[in-house]
């Protein structure tokens, strides 16, 4: 920006790198190729931005995503045209579903070749359109700086999301002056800056009149940096709070007012309290089908208040009574003020009775598992991990049973410490995401909880971890099955285990070793604690711990797809009263 008045003409590639520097980008996760050679040359000639060479473009985008989720800053990935762009798509769609701010730059063939089926040509803007917040094709080097500014602005404001910038090779070679705008104004894009005060006052009154209230909060609170406001509101009212998979950590899990995660594998008390509540306050959550179960049976007695930055999230799946659109931190501040201004207190008798009811549900001890088993129970591994890290690790996961066990058993007391692919459910996310997290927080313990199937979907990134000395701790809960699919086959397909047994697993210890890391195999419950301690103590090495767990263990409790929240399966042995 300091050179804004300089008429010096520089290469598009240099403009690109200067734009990243102006956005204070620390890391670019990427993979070079033909059309981005000029950009890579410009990266070579500077030292402000560090480029991290991954082993697959999907890994680049997940790493940028992990960085963004852990820091709150936009993640940046750089890939080449054609297969580079298509490999990045899974990562982009993952970020889109969880509203993660990313700027992904795809190289494109020379503008004169676009549409000619040129070598490594793909319509990156067309392919990514349904899974980005916005995307751009830059056809003129004079538009490059402004487009980069717009990309970062759009990715990080309003409801965040990934933005793709497709840059043809000639645009990186052509010259223009570098003028980077300080701010950007778009007549067609104006994110909300506050909520409607009338609606907020109405919400405050409705909340105070509740007999059986509950707060249901989601990833929006984490993304909107409103954990402090949420905690203040929850404590002010004394109401029970439940959080979605994406919302965990925004309110401390160890606090008694937290009644656990809700949804398909949420706690009995959380789902029952949702079902029985009379006022539901949804904050930064989107009534996803994994939360609501059968919509016909969802919260039958509740008046619903919904706070969200995205008007399209409101009344999409569930009709709400009081909608409030705005940034969650500002709206919560105004809501707290409005509640205080009424001079009223919550109905303490009703609240005491409500907590009494919740405590009887809690007494079900729905997360109970067999502690005397001779086989390693996955829940036990996660309990021990939580104990030994004292809840201070940043934990990423892949997708499946291990993800649900982690959400249930690792108690997150702070936001941005729990990083997983919730919306898209992308297997292979955990390891590259952990790389992004470890770059952002080099001194923190970063743990990737995975399974024997998920870990193999981006296993090549072990090589990146070696190159950049990332001391990630990987836990594979190895049951030799695609566990979550196997669970559904057991429960709903009469135990026909169609293609879920993994017959030829690698020796993960040797695999880790061949990448230059440390591998451990743990077969017995008595070895779990010692192995975790040993691995966690190795501060400067990546350790892959391969836990041979009980192959038949399932995730409970469970609301089967299409069932109501109050129709939970506790376990095959346990019937609900």
């Amino acid at each position: 920006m300091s050179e804004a008045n300089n008429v010096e003409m520089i290469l598009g590639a240099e403009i690109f790198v200067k734009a990243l520097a102006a956005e204070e980008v620390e890391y670019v996760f990427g993979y070079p190729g033909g059309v981005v050679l000029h950009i890579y040359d410009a990266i070579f000639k500077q030292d402000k931005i560090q480029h991290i060479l991954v082993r697959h473009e999907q890994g680049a985008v997940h790493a940028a995503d992990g960085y963004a989720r852990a820091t709150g800053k936009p993640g940046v990935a750089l890939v080449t045209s054609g297969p580079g762009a298509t490999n990045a798509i899974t990562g982009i769609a993952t970020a889109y579903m969880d509203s993660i701010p990313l700027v992904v730059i795809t190289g494109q063939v020379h503008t004169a070749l676009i549409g000619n089926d040129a070598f490594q040509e793909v319509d990156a803007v067309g392919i990514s359109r349904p899974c980005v917040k916005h995307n751009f094709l830059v056809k003129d080097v004079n538009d490059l700086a402004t487009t980069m500014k717009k990309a970062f602005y759009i990715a990080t404001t309003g409801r965040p999301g990934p933005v793709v910038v497709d840059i043809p090779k000639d645009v990186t070679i052509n010259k223009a002056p570098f003028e980077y705008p300080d701010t950007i104004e778009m007549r067609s894009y104006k994110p909300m800056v506050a909520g409607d005060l009338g609606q907020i006052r109405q919400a405050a009154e409705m909340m105070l009149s509740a007999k059986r209230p509950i707060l249901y909060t989601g990833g929006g609170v984490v993304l909107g940096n409103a954990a402090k406001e949420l905690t203040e509101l929850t404590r002010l009212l004394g109401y029970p709070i439940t959080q979605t998979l994406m919302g965990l950590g925004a309110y401390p899990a160890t606090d008694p007012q937290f009644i656990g995660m809700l949804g398909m594998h949420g706690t009995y008390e959380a789902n029952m309290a949702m079902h029985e509540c009379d006022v539901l306050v949804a904050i930064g959550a989107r009534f996803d089908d994994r939360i609501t179960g059968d919509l016909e049976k969802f919260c039958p007695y509740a008046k619903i208040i919904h706070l969200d930055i995205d008007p399209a999230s409101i009344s999409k799946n569930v009709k709400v009574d009081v909608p409030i659109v705005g940034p969650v931190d500002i709206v919560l501040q105004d809501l707290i003020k409005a509640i205080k201004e009424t001079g009223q207190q919550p109905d303490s008798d009703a609240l005491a009775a409500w907590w009494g009811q919740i405590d009887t549900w809690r007494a079900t001890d729905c997360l109970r598992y067999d502690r005397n088993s001779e086989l390693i129970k996955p829940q036990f591994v996660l309990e021990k991990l939580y104990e030994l890290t004292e809840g201070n690790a940043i934990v990423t996961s892949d997708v499946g049973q291990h993800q649900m066990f982690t959400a249930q058993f690792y108690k997150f007391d702070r936001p941005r410490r729990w990083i997983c692919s919730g919306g898209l459910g992308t297997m292979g996310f955990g390891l590259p995401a952990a790389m992004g997290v470890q770059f952002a927080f080099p001194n923190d313990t970063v743990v990737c909880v995975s399974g024997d199937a998920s870990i193999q979907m981006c296993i090549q990134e072990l090589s990146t971890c070696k190159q950049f000395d990332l001391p990630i701790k990987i836990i594979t809960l190895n049951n030799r099955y695609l566990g979550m699919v196997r669970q559904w086959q057991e429960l709903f397909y009469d135990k026909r285990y169609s293609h879920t047994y993994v017959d030829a697993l690698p020796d993960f210890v040797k695999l880790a070793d061949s990448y230059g890391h440390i591998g451990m195999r743990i077969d017995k419950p008595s070895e779990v604690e010692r192995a975790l301690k040993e691995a966690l103590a190795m501060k400067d090495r990546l350790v892959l711990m391969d836990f041979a767990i009980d192959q038949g263990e399932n995730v409970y409790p469970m609301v089967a797809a299409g069932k109501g929240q109050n129709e939970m399966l506790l376990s095959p042995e346990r019937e609900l009263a």
Partner: protein
Amino acid sequence: MRHTISILLENEAGALSRVAGLFSARGYNIESLTVAPTEDSSISRMTLVTRGSDEIIEQITKQLNKLIEVIKLIDLTEGGHIERELILVKINVASVNQREEIKRLVDIFRGRIIDVSDANYTVEMTGTGEKLDAFIKAIEPPLIVEVVRSGVSGIARGNISLRV
């Protein structure tokens, strides 16, 4: 229910495909869609006719508003509004009788014959979709050579306007 939505959007490459892609990705119907630049060439105006329950129409308007290039939109169906459509019809008029009859019909419907050849009349007509349907129905099907319909353009009545 049928809704007519008017949209102002940035006149940029790809904006149209974003709207079309939104409808296909979310399973909404497009009955017709017309688009052209306005008096300000940086802005396009689109008239989109769709069908859906109130909930679906609410989602459609919200999702359209979310598109970065959409500046403003209005659901014309919510108030008094005017819709017009243009058709061009090429009609086979081999005999004198047919020529007479088509000429009369075009006059009744207040259309215009804009091209004449030895075998065909080309008729231009504007009106509501219903009127144009009625005109086409009034012609014996074998005589119709081609029909070109523009899709609906719409504008609100009175003081309500959609502008930047």
